[in-house]
């Protein structure tokens, strides 16, 4: 206990911090309420309240009216899936940045996204949707991670730098495989589906899909949440961590597996939604600081809020569904640029 305290000085939840978390929670609730009530099919607010209340009182009932079905079978699972994915992607990014002691890494650097993208594209090429797509995306996401692990392990040890380089190699490999799939795909049938899916979208969200996404994301989130104390140690140099009684190799891999669970699942249910794992942890650091014990839950709340909000824009701005990955990049890239400038300005001043 005292060892941990040395590494990351014990700090009580101050009133200020409680206020910050309260505000984050309120923001998430507001975003979800906004998302539930916004859509192309107009449903009045009193009617929404009525339908949601009725569903809460009798969850087993099958909705019969169109507006009930839209609220309960289209919007609600979609909002929950977007929020869950947002939390998972943001937490994955925050954890990865802690492990690599580098605020610029994201799940893409481990090749997981590319692996999962290949799995999904392959499923679409073969004409499969739904569970097969999910399974293949997750399988290849994990396969990419295993390949990175095998490649990076030299003389029984895994250095951070070799993991990053191996991740780039495996990512490039799967990137090429995705290109091959696109090259041979039928421009009449599978190619548009693959292209659209790679751009990211929650448009196919259902309760069943949410059910498929929950295990991977929940387990991943739980692992990182339980390891949030250790992340502060993993952020130290390996020799220091070892001297503090931590086996950084083993715990690092536990974090990687959790991240690949979350990333693979999110790619499987929604395609490639980039930038969440990069932008959200940065914003969270500005709000609550570097300590992973608070940074992880703050990233989760902020990520859920952000992706819920952006997905709502994607499905309501026009009659067409705007690809989500395009929106997150359009918003994410400039915001990240500004955050970076601010970060370096402060670093230089110090």
């Amino acid at each position: 206990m005292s060892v941990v305290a040395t590494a990351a000085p014990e700090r009580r939840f101050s009133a200020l911090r409680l206020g910050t978390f309260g505000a984050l929670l309120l923001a998430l609730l507001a975003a979800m309420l906004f998302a539930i009530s916004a859509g192309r099919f107009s449903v009045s607010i009193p009617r929404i309240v009525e339908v949601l209340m009725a569903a809460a009182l009798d969850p087993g009932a099958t909705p019969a009216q169109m507006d009930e079905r839209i609220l309960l079978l289209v919007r609600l699972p979609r909002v929950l899936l977007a929020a869950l994915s947002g939390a998972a992607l943001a937490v994955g990014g925050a954890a990865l940045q802690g492990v690599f002691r580098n605020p610029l890494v994201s799940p893409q650097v481990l090749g997981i996204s590319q692996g999962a993208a290949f799995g999904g594209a392959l499923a679409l090429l073969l004409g499969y949707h739904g569970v097969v797509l999910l399974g293949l995306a997750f399988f290849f996401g994990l396969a990419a991670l295993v390949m990175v692990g095998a490649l990076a392990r030299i003389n029984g040890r895994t250095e951070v730098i070799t993991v990053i380089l191996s991740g780039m190699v495996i990512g490039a490999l799967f990137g090429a495989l995705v290109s091959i799939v696109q090259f041979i795909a039928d421009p009449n049938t599978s190619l548009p589906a693959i292209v659209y899916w790679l751009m990211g979208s929650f448009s196919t969200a259902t309760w069943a899909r949410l059910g498929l996404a929950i295990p991977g994301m929940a387990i991943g989130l739980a692992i990182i949440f339980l390891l949030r104390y250790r992340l502060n140690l993993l952020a130290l140099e390996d020799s220091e961590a070892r001297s503090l009684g931590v086996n950084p190799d083993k715990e690092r891999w536990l974090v990687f597996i959790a991240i690949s669970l979350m990333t693979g699942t999110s790619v499987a249910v929604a395609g490639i939604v980039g930038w969440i794992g990069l932008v959200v942890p940065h914003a969270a650091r500005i709000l609550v600081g570097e300590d992973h014990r608070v940074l992880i839950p703050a990233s989760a709340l902020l990520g859920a809020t952000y992706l819920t909000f952006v997905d709502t824009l994607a499905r309501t701005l026009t009659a067409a569904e705007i690809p989500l990955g395009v929106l997150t990049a359009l918003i994410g890239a400039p915001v990240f640029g500004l955050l970076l400038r601010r970060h370096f300005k402060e670093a230089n001043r110090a």
Partner: protein
Amino acid sequence: MRISRAFASSIVLAMACVTDRAFADPVTITDQAGRTVTLNEPAERVVTIPMPMASTVIAIDGGPDRLVGMNPLSKTAILEGILGKIFPEAKDISSDVTAPNFIPNIEELAATNPELVVQWADYGADLVDPITNAGLNVVLISYGTEEKTKAYHQIVADAIGKPERAAAINSWRDTVAAEMREKTKDLADDQRPKVLYLGRAMENLTASGTKGNYNAWYIDLAGGVNASADVEGNGTTISPEQIAAWDPDVILLNSFEPQLGIDRIYNDPILSLTKAAQEKKVYKMPLGGYRWDPPSQESPLTWMWLGNLLHPEIFNYDLRAEMKKAYKTIYDYELTDEDIDGILWTEMQGDAPNYAQFKAN
């Protein structure tokens, strides 16, 4: 001895070619990119790279004899569809000349020794220049509207020396379009059902606006109105919620996705509540010598089919008779009743409203 005989026979062959060429007139064509292409004689060996063009060449020529290469997806479509039954010899035609995405394999292409290559006009010079650089004749075609369809029919027909075939097919189109237009032009807005054509429906749902959209053009011709008129662009992904907001009267499913059937709509919690689904007016587009949803040599049959479905009180085409007549003219083939049932998906949707008229007597 052997050498000199071979030499002698090659001279005879060369002279035969010369005399043959001397009788044929050169053909000059302006393609749909505005390029002028001159052939010394009508093309005997044609390669088609755009998907729909293989069946177009077969239709204009009345058979696949001139077709020496095509897109692998054209070949799959032909072999799986009715054309594979009519022309089983099509299975021997090369499909190595291009990748499905229209990037030609120049060496395979040259190996088929084509006198004419048909390529897209709209996808940029990178798909065209390699072919012209190899010294081959290329005509470029453009797709998507009725006017363009008639124009490329004429271009292909001129190039193979059968201009009268395109004239016949195009005048059939004009006649049918004019008589249908005459019957639907005065329909009031409230008499026009809202028709939603779903270009994709398996994984994601796509619909198209009206501008440059062939489906919207013939929905209008048949007396309907495009339910997805407020979408920008073609083949745009939309949400089920958006379809609920449009609440179409009729849903047309594409013929591109093989696994797609009308149950897709009836099993969907949202789509099954649309007016179209409630009234069982969900139809999959037929698949004939080519898919009936995009423009093809069989398009007038599409229009008649849709006209009869949307307005049985206005249109009473004998579709089965029209199909038999058209297939006889275009492919010189006697269409059987089983063929027609297969093309129209009678087994799947024969019990849908207004579909009984298409059943065999």
